[in-house]
C-alpha cells in the first residue's frame, strides 16, 4: 500500500459512472430487454399452495395436451439437490413441499397466457403435514421435522447441522467466563427483540432465459449478482461440466443479495432441456418476487449485557434464533456471520453466543444487504443504549469507551486491525449536535436523538477468488475484463478507475467489457459481501501491474534502459533517467522497430491478475475460536434526530448523519451515494416494512400493502462522512461499504424514538400506529 501522498490522481476522484449515459438514455440492456424473436418460449411455474405437505401425485397430461404448450417438467425429472453452503433444496419440489410458493412443476408455452392456463390443468394431490412458522416452535422437542434427511445433505465444512432436529447450523462462541463476570457487573440489561421478515424489493424482478443446444451447451441469460456461482452450482446439480454452461449477465436492476447464488435461474434451464434449441424465459411477477425467492429471514435475539460501575462492558450473552425458512442453503452462513460478529463493534472480554439457523415453513431466507448484520445490530445497539442508561453514562461516551480498536482480541480470538470507528462516532454525534436539546416544531411533537454503530466483515467462504484481464488495444486504450457485476453500486466504474490509475492512463482510455459472460469474462466468485472493490479491485491492480511490467520490458529493451527507470503518465511511457518518451499508441500491439528497422520488439499485451485471501482460518466448532475468522471489518456509525407527532405517531427524520471507515474512497461520490441509498433503505425497513404471514401465506405481496420508502419519506437532511483508515491489503487501502449503510439504521431510529418518547418496541417496523399505541400505553 502506498502513502496517501503518492496516490495516482484518479484514486479518490469523483469520476462519472461508466454506465451512466446508457442508463440515463434508457438504452442500457437488462435481461428482460434482450430480444429473442419469435422462437422464444415463455415459462410459468406451478407452485405449492401448502406450507408443508407430501406430494402424493402429479398429473401433467392435460397440461401437455393444451395447444401451444411445448414442455412440462416436474421435480422427478431433475432429482439433484442444489445449495451454496448446504445442498438442501430441489430445483422443483420432489415428494414434499416446504413453503407456500415452492415450485412443483414448470411449463413452457408459446405465450405467457397459455403457460398460465396450463398451470391450472396440472393436477397435484397433496397430503398436508403439520407446519411450523416460528423458529422457537421449530426447536421444541417433538416438532415435526422439515428436513428429515438433513444428515445426508452435502454441507460446507464450516457449517454444523444437527440431523434429527430443525437446526441446520449452530455456531458457538465461548470466550472468557460470562457466568463469573456477571458478579462483577454494576449494571446488567437483558432484552429480547424480534426482527421480522422483509423483502429486498429490487425494482427489476428476477428474470432468466435459458437455451439448451442440441450439443448440450446451456446458455443462461440472467439478472444475476453471481454468474460464476450460478454456473458452478447448476452444473453440479445437473451433473454437467462447468464448461457446458455459459451465463451471460447484463445490468442488474437492483440486487441487494436476492440475485446472489441460485434461486429461480435453474428453472428455465430444466424446462429448456425438454425443448432444445429454443430459448425459454421466466420472469417473476411482483407477487412471486415477494415470497417465492430469497427474503431477509426473521430473527429472535436474546441479549444480556453487563458493565462495571465505570461503564466498561464486561460480559455479553447473545442467543439468536434465525427463521431460516424452508431451505437454509444460503441462510446457514448468515447464521455463522451473526455468530462470529455477535458482539457488534465492542471489546468485551467475556462472551457466550449461540447462533441457530432454524428451518420453518416460511419462505426461504437468503442474503440481504449486509446479511445478518442489520438484524443483529438492531438488538445490540438498543441494548447498549439501555445499558448506558442503566449505569448513567452518556450513550456516545459509553460507546467511545467500549468500542473495538486495532489490537483488540475479538470474541473469536482474531486480532482486530486498525479501524476508524471512533472518528465515525464523533463525526455523526457532532453533525446532529449530540447532547443539545432541539425545540420541537409544535407543542404536541416530541424531539429525540439516537445513535447506533455497526461493524461487518465480508461474510463468505474463507477463499473466494477474483480475477481480471486487461487488453492493450492498437491505439493504446485498454479493455478491462472483470467477472464482478454492476448492480448499481458502481463496480465497473471503480474497476476502470483502478486500472487507469495503476497503469497511468486517463479515465477515458479504459473501457469495461460488459455484459459479464462466463465464457469470456475472468472468474469472480460473487458480487456480494461488499467484497468487490476490495477483492476484484486487487485483481484489477494485479492485472494493471502485469500490463505495466510487459510494457516496461518492451520499452526498456528498445531504449536499452532499466525497466525500473520507466513510468507511464497519461498514456505516455517516460524514462525518469533519460527523459525519453513514447506514447502507448505508438507501439501497443505492433511493437517498436529496432534501430534501422533491424527487426522488432514487442507484441500484443494481455495483462492478468488474481486475488484470493489466503489467511482466513477455520474456527473451533465448540468455541468459535481461531486465528483469523474474517478478512477484515468495515465499521461505521449513524445518528438521527427525529420528531414524533404524539397525536398520530408519525415520525419524521429531521437530521440523519452517517459515517463509515472505507479505508480509502476510490470514488468518494459513489461512496456517498451508497451511504445515502443504504440509509434510506434502512429507514424504510425501520418505519414501514414487514412481510405479514398467516399460516405461511404472505398477506401483503404488493406495493400498496408492503410499503417501501418513497421520495416524500426522505430525511430532511442527510449528512455523509467518509473516514479513511487504510486496509493493509486493499487496493490503495480500500475496503467495501456497499451493504453497511443500512445496518445501524433500525437501531439508530429506535434509540431516537426512545429519546423522544421514552418508548421501546420489540421490533420494527416502527409504524405510526405502533408508535402512537406505545405512547398511549406508556401514559397509562
Amino acid at each position, binding site marked *: 500500500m502506498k502513502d496517501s501522498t503518492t496516490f495516482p490522481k484518479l484514486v479518490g476522484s*469523483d469520476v*462519472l*459512472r461508466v*454506465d*451512466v*449515459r*446508457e*442508463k*440515463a*438514455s*434508457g*438504452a*442500457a*440492456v*437488462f435481461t*428482460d*430487454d434482450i*430480444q429473442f424473436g419469435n422462437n422464444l418460449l415463455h415459462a410459468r411455474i406451478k407452485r405449492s399452495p401448502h406450507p408443508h405437505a407430501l406430494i402424493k401425485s402429479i398429473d401433467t397430461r392435460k397440461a401437455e395436451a393444451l395447444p401451444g404448450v411445448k414442455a412440462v417438467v416436474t421435480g422427478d425429472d431433475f432429482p439433484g439437490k442444489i445449495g451454496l453452503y448446504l445442498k438442501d433444496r430441489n430445483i422443483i419440489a420432489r415428494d414434499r413441499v416446504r413453503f407456500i410458493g415452492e415450485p412443483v412443476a414448470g411449463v413452457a408455452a408459446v405465450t405467457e397466457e397459455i403457460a398460465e392456463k396450463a398451470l391450472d390443468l396440472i393436477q397435484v394431490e397433496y397430503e398436508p403435514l403439520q407446519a411450523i412458522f416460528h423458529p422457537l416452535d421449530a426447536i421444541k422437542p417433538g416438532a415435526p421435522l422439515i428436513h428429515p434427511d438433513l444428515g445426508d445433505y452435502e454441507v460446507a465444512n464450516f457449517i454444523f447441522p444437527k440431523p434429527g432436529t430443525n437446526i441446520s447450523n449452530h455456531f458457538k462462541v465461548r470466550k472468557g467466563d460470562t457466568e463469573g463476570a456477571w458478579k462483577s457487573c454494576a449494571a446488567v440489561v437483558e432484552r429480547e427483540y424480534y426482527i421480522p421478515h422483509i423483502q*429486498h*424489493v*429490487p*425494482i*427489476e*424482478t428476477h428474470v432468466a432465459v435459458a437455451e439448451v443446444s442440441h450439443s448440450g451447451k446451456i446458455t443462461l441469460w440472467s439478472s444475476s449478482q453471481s454468474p460464476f456461482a450460478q454456473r458452478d452450482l447448476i452444473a453440479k446439480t445437473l451433473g454437467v461440466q462447468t464448461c457446458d454452461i455459459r451465463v451471460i449477465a447484463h*445490468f*442488474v*436492476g*437492483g*440486487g*441487494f443479495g436476492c440475485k446472489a447464488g441460485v434461486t429461480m435461474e435453474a428453472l428455465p434451464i430444466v424446462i429448456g432441456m425438454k425443448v432444445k434449441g429454443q430459448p425459454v424465459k421466466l*420472469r417473476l*411477477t*411482483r407477487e412471486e418476487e415477494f415470497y417465492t425467492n430469497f427474503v431477509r429471514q426473521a430473527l429472535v435475539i436474546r441479549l444480556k449485557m453487563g458493565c462495571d460501575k465505570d461503564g466498561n462492558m464486561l460480559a455479553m450473552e447473545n442467543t439468536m434464533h434465525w427463521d431460516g425458512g424452508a431451505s437454509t442453503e444460503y441462510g446457514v452462513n448468515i447464521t455463522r456471520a451473526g455468530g462470529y460478529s455477535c458482539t457488534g463493534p465492542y471489546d468485551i472480554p467475556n462472551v457466550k453466543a449461540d447462533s441457530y439457523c432454524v428451518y420453518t415453513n416460511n419462505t426461504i431466507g437468503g442474503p440481504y444487504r449486509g446479511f445478518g448484520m442489520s438484524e443483529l445490530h438492531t438488538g445490540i445497539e438498543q441494548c447498549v443504549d439501555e445499558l448506558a442508561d442503566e449505569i448513567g453514562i452518556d450513550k456516545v461516551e459509553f460507546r467511545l469507551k467500549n468500542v473495538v480498536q486495532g489490537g483488540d482480541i475479538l470474541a473469536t480470538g482474531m486480532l482486530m486491525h486498525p479501524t476508524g470507528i471512533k472518528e465515525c462516532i464523533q463525526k455523526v454525534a457532532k453533525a446532529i449536535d449530540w447532547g443539545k436539546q432541539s425545540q420541537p416544531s409544535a407543542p404536541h411533537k416530541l424531539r429525540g436523538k439516537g445513535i447506533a454503530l455497526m461493524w461487518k466483515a465480508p461474510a463468505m467462504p474463507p477463499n473466494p477468488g477474483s480475477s481480471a484481464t486487461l487488453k492493450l488495444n492498437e491505439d493504446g486504450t485498454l479493455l478491462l475484463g472483470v467477472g464482478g457485476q454492476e*448492480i*448499481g*453500486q*458502481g463496480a465497473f466504474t471503480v474497476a476502470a478507475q483502478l486500472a487507469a490509475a495503476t497503469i497511468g492512463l486517463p479515465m477515458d482510455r479504459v473501457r469495461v467489457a460488459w455484459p459479464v459472460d462466463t465464457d469470456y469474462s475472468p472468474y469472480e466468485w460473487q458480487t456480494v459481501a461488499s467484497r468487490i472493490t476490495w477483492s476484484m479491485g486487487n485483481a484489477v491492480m494485479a492485472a494493471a501491474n502485469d500490463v505495466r511490467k510487459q510494457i516496461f520490458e518492451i520499452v526498456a529493451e528498445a531504449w536499452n534502459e532499466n525497466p525500473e527507470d520507466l513510468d507511464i503518465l497519461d498514456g505516455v511511457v517516460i524514462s525518469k533517467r533519460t527523459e525519453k518518451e513514447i506514447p502507448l499508441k505508438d507501439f501497443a500491439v505492433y511493437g517498436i522497430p529496432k534501430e534501422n528497422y533491424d527487426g522488432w520488439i514487442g507484441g500484443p499485451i494481455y495483462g492478468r491478475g488474481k486475488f484470493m485471501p489466503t489467511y482466513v482460518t477455520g474456527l473451533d466448532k465448540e468455541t468459535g475460536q481461531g486465528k483469523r475468522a474474517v478478512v477484515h471489518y468495515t465499521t461505521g456509525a449513524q445518528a438521527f434526530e427525529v420528531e414524533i407527532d404524539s397525536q398520530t405517531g408519525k415520525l419524521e427524520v429531521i437530521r440523519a448523519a452517517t459515517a463509515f471507515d472505507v479505508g480509502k474512497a476510490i470514488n468518494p*461520490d*459513489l461512496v456517498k*451515494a451508497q451511504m*445515502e*441509498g*443504504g*440509509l*434510506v*433503505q434502512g429507514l424504510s425497513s425501520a418505519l414501514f416494512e414487514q412481510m405479514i404471514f398467516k399460516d405461511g401465506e404472505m398477506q401483503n405481496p*404488493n*406495493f*400498496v400493502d408492503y410499503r*417501501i*420508502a*418513497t*421520495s*416524500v419519506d*426522505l430525511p430532511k437532511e*442527510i449528512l455523509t462522512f467518509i473516514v479513511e483508515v487504510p486496509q493493509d491489503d486493499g487496493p490503495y487501502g480500500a475496503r467495501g461499504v456497499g451493504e453497511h449503510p443500512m445496518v445501524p439504521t433500525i437501531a439508530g431510529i429506535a434509540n431516537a424514538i426512545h429519546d423522544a418518547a421514552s418508548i421501546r418496541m420489540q421490533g420494527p417496523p416502527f409504524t405510526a400506529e405502533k408508535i402512537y399505541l406505545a405512547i398511549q400505553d406508556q401514559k397509562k
Partner: protein
Amino acid sequence: MAKHIINLTVNERKEQLEVPAHLTLLRMLRENLALTGTKNGCEAGECGACTVLLNGEPVNSCMVLAVECDGAEVMTVEGLTENGALDALQKAFIEENAIQCGFCTPGMLISAFALLQRNPKPDEIVIKEALVGNLCRCTGYERIVKAVKDAAVSSGRTR
C-alpha cells in the same frame, strides 16, 4: 383473440399496429416496438417504472390498454433524447450521480419531465410529490430530487 388496428404517434413517429384487446401499452411498447427503455416493475400500477407520457400526461403504461391509445401521442424515455443528444434532465441525473442500477430511471425521468412541463420551477416539496409514484430502491431519492431541481434551473426547456 380479437385484434384491433390502432394508429398512434410514439416519440413523434407514426405507428400502425395490430394488437390484441388485452395487450397493455407497456407490453406494446416493449414487445411490438422494442422500446425497452420503459421498464416492467410490477404490472400493477404501483412502482412507476413503466411511466410514459400519454397525450402529455404521465401514466403507468401497464395500466393502459394499447387499444385505448388509438390516435394518441405517446412519449417514452427514448423520446427524451433528440438527435442523440441527452435532455437537460438526463444530464442533470448524470451530473448528480442520481442513477445506480438504472431500472427506475426511465420512469423517474418521464415523471420529472411531465412535472417540468406543467411547472418549470417546482420547489423541493412539489418535486418529491411528483415523484412519489416512482419507486427507487437504490439511491434514496435525494440525488434524484436534486437533479430535477438542477434541470429546472438550467433549462426552462419545453417541448
